[in-house]
């Protein structure tokens, strides 16, 4: 008899941990979740705040300090002027603000009355301007603002001759960085009886504004529209034009030729109350690239010294301000940063109308949580601190005026930033591609 075959003994289990496959590629958990949602609903996704993706930023630049080539200015005992004059090209009364940091357009509707009032009061602390955004000018905002910019939106909701008469400056809006080419979305959850009455909208019904002005169907018409607005305002106040950053170099030329006093360029980092995720993620170029393109366009037109350049989109601290000014901007505008100063945590849920901090909501219980005076003080503090940060850097670079910062004061920390901006890499006077003011 042959011997019974013996079962093979199991190999001893390895004690070495097995590698765990984590999908970092295209089929990651986020991709899978997005597909499942679309498969279920057949719809694209709407979300608040703006993009969550990586963009090259102003942090990729550094400022060259003055040493022996330039003498630094004393941080604590010597002044660096921050007063900024915007829109003096044709306006008899340009917008004069005490800091080059403005508050950008955010609507009453997307934001609560308390948040708009706090932002307006915040402008009083530091002597800057607030912009009403789409949907009408809230009386509490106008009554409390230091300087009031009034937006002329395509929808013209809440807009009339009276809005113009209340303005220290006008801003014709063509697009915003968060959703360029698209118009305002205000979800029904925020359209209460009060907001509905203010905007002439049925309560609870989503608003999808249209992206083109009913009375500006092209750049040629814009020339006449601006003349009309000049006539209405007797050439007193500035007229700005806000655009999302796309073909910036060409767009600013058209705006300048149409006769604006200033252009506002909103980079792709810009925020909004609600937007299709596709738009925030895949439309437009970031602020870093947009500033350079705007400056190039205005310089090629020979109007850089006439037309004010205001940039927005992801501006968060004094370094961003200083660098934007060094690149050629005359001022910056902030939105998300000012909301964070009031308590926002950028939870990306503005579109739901539920905001635990009483900012992006119309829910009375949530609105009651926002202490207007405290929030206003925090907004003022934030802008003051940013302004001081910018002057600190400017003084270190040997400037007694913020406006004296220049592109020669900058170097790029990354090859990407150098290629995007035309600013030389650190430790060199060389760049990639098109130079930006260096030769």
């Amino acid at each position, binding site marked *: 008899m042959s011997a019974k075959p013996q079962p093979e003994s199991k190999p001893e289990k390895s004690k070495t941990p097995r590698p765990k496959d984590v999908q970092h590629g295209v089929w990651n958990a986020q991709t899978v979740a997005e597909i499942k949602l679309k498969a279920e609903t057949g719809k694209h996704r709407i979300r608040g705040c703006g993009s969550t993706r990586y963009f090259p930023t102003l942090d990729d630049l550094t400022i060259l300090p003055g040493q022996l080539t330039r003498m630094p200015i004393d941080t604590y005992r010597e002044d660096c002027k921050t007063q900024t004059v915007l829109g003096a090209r044709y306006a008899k009364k340009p917008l004069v603000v005490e800091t080059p940091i403005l508050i950008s357009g955010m609507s009453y509707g997307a934001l609560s009355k308390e948040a708009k009032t706090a932002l307006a009061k915040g402008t009083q602390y530091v002597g800057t301007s607030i912009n009403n955004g789409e949907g009408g000018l809230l009386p509490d905002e106008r009554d409390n603002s230091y300087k009031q910019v009034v937006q002329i939106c395509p929808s013209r909701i809440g807009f009339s001759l009276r809005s113009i008469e209340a303005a220290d400056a006008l801003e014709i809006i063509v697009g915003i960085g968060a959703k360029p080419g698209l118009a305002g979305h205000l979800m029904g959850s925020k359209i209460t009886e009060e907001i509905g009455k203010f*905007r002439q909208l049925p309560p609870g019904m989503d608003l*999808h504004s249209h992206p083109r002005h009913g*009375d500006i169907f092209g750049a040629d018409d814009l020339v*006449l529209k601006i003349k*009309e607005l000049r006539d*209405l305002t007797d050439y007193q106040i500035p007229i700005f034009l806000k655009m999302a950053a796309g073909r910036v170099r060409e767009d600013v030329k058209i705006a300048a030729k149409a006769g604006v006093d200033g252009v506002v360029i909103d980079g792709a980092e810009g925020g909004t109350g609600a937007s299709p995720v596709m738009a925030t993620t895949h439309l437009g170029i970031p602020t870093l690239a947009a500033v350079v393109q705007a400056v190039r366009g205005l310089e090629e037109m020979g109007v850089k010294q006439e037309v004010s350049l205001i940039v927005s989109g992801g501006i968060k601290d004094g370094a961003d301000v200083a660098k934007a000014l060094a690149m050629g901007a005359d001022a910056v505008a902030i939105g998300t940063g000012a909301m964070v100063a009031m308590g926002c945590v950028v939870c990306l849920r503005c579109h739901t109308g539920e905001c635990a901090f009483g900012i992006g909501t119309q829910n009375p219980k949530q609105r009651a949580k926002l202490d207007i005076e405290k929030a206003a003080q925090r907004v003022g503090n934030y802008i003051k601190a940013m302004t001081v940060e910018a002057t600190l850097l400017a003084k270190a670079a040997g400037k007694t005026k913020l406006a004296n910062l220049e592109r020669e004061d900058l170097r790029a920390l990354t090859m990407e930033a150098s290629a995007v901006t035309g600013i030389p890499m650190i430790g060199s006077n060389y760049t990639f591609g098109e130079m930006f003011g260096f030769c």
Partner: protein
Amino acid sequence: MVSLDVAEMNVREVNTRLKELMKAGEEVEIVNPHSMHNLATGIKGSGRIVVRGSTGFYTGGFLQGPTLVVEGNTGLYTGDNMGGGEIIVERNTGMNLAPSQVGGTVVVKGNTGSRAAFGMKGGNLIVCGEVGMRSGQMTLGGRMIFLGKVGADIGESMYNGVIHVRDPEVENRLGGNVTLQPISSQEEQEVAALFEKYGIDQDAGKLQSIVPKVYGRHDYVMFKPTHLSGRA
């Protein structure tokens, strides 16, 4: 009546003069307008302006009180952002008539182009002839009366307001998010009063009303596969 020959004047000079005259409630005749753009924009007051000829773009924009009569044609964007008063055009207008009108009354005796009353907020707009496509789009308030043939997608995405129409084919030209219904007796009376005021010989009872469908959100058709609709 004050007569202004504007042939040698620029529009700023004309409008400055009109502002003074309308403030005083005068009646003014403008001759040789030569299709001037931006004529009579931002004028307040209570007077009357009669233009003997045709005007260009933005005629009567932001008007707030006076009556403006144009005996010829007007260009694009006539009555833009108008807040009050009257604009009466004896012949035709260009497209985008009275965009974002807030108040007052516009009467066009002839035809107009596409997108009449784009984003209307209030007031009355009467077109005795034809109107082009997408008229009354995104209306938030006010009343439109279109007595001739209407173009495609009329009333698209209205939120408020009403469009009265006589075109028997209108059902095939409705935009999204609106519905057609018989004119109510109160509306009929109000429209008849407007007809009488502006000398329009029409029967208000023969009109139908386009009103918004108001519910949770507008429906948009963003994908239109032709193989399902059978359309090329």
